[in-house]
């Protein structure tokens, strides 16, 4: 459109505004497409989950922590050189430290 032209400031402003708007709209549209794909893929998964929701309310473990708890228990077992049936994880609490876990991990490896 404007190849080999010295364009005016007014036109440059229009190009800037229009292009930035298109970039925003394209990426916004992609973000909604991601939502749509996720909704389509998980739509059928939610239906069977609704049925057992009323069933056993006695399960004490919150489902969302199970995965993390299993991983942490496995990591503890690996560190202690034992198996997960030899100890019980009662609580998991993140400890704030001055160093990142990567630094701590690196130091541990060096010491070992």
């Amino acid at each position: 459109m404007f190849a080999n032209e010295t364009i005016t400031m007014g036109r440059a402003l229009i190009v800037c505004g229009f292009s930035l708007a298109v970039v925003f709209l394209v990426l916004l549209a992609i973000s909604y497409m991601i939502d749509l794909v996720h909704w389509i893929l998980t739509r059928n998964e939610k239906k069977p989950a609704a049925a057992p929701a009323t069933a056993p309310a006695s399960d004490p473990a919150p489902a969302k922590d199970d995965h993390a708890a299993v991983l942490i228990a496995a990591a503890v077992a690996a560190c202690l050189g034992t198996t997960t049936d030899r100890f019980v994880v009662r609580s998991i609490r993140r400890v704030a430290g001055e160093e990142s876990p990567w630094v701590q991990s690196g130091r541990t490896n060096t010491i070992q």
Partner: protein
Amino acid sequence: MLELLQGFWESTGFSQLVQCNTELFGLRLPGELIMIGIACIFLYLAIRKGFEPYLLIPIAFGMLLVNLPLAGLMAHAVGDENGGLLYYLYQGTELGIYPPLIFLCIGAGTDFGPLLANPRSLLLGAAAQLGIFTTFFGAIFLGFTGPEAASIGIIGGADGPTALYLTSKLAPDLLGAIAIAAYSYMALVPVIQPPIIKLLTTPEERVIKMEQLREVSKTEKIIFPIVVTLFTVLLLPSAGALIGMLMLGNLLKESGRVPLLVDCIQKSLMYIVSILLGLTVGAKASAEMFLRPQTLQIIVLGVIAFGMGTAGGVLLGKVMCKMTGGKINPMIGAAGVSAVPMAARVVQKEGQKYNPSNFLLMHAMGPNVAGVIGSAVAAGMLLLFFQ
């Protein structure tokens, strides 16, 4: 005997090297000698300081080779006489072949999972493209033509292959200066971004912890590159080469069916194309093309582009923080400039500085890879206007 010696001397590159045949700010200077000096400085920065060595070493060496007088490595083919080696290798850059191949390799090494887990982070990748368009406007103000200004503005995308692709199409004469500016500033992301992040965010915003991202299924990861390619390239055909190659690389990786291809792309092809691209981009930095007042303007505009891109991402991050009731740490907006994964690492490091138990890396990777798509779309828009 004296004539023989004189003839021999004149046939060597040394005699040409000291000739003052380049004019800069009204002064006659030995251009090739200065450019060899600059190339050596870049080699020092790449080798000793580790500034983007994988690209800066080939770029600097290309710069060195092209400024060796009488070697004719970038000489065009004339009649029956063949051109120089770098001239032929440069065709891959000029014809827009190498940058999309680099995008193929980037796609094969990119995990769009964090982006799929938090799709709104795409908007941060869009906001960070502000640097491209403000710098484009600034370049027009300084008197550059439309295609030149677009090529300078794209430095703000912080995406080397996109910058090279667009510049090779719109303003090949500026390729050397723009490549040097783009890759130098990408190496300086850890220096440029933190002060801007600190300036635009409050201490309370900087310590915000974000919720853990949801798990993303394999099917979502496979569908994503196909959907993005269909939608983006149909809407903006000029972005087809970059987006198409990026998404092809990603699909090959996510399909899980062609591990040998992915391994080849991620390693061998990536390094082969990097050498060719770097060498030929450096070869465009000859004295007469590089030692111009415009180069200084490009370098200044480049740092403004990076700064504005970072600011755009952080400012939209602040807006999203307010709209979500403080669930988004605005610092992740800085990762919207696509320098992958450097910008995300900077956000992680800054986040831990203000809250040692904060882990923003995966949250920042979303805007970071969104920035790659955003800058490719922005390049497509600029190609549409100026090609």
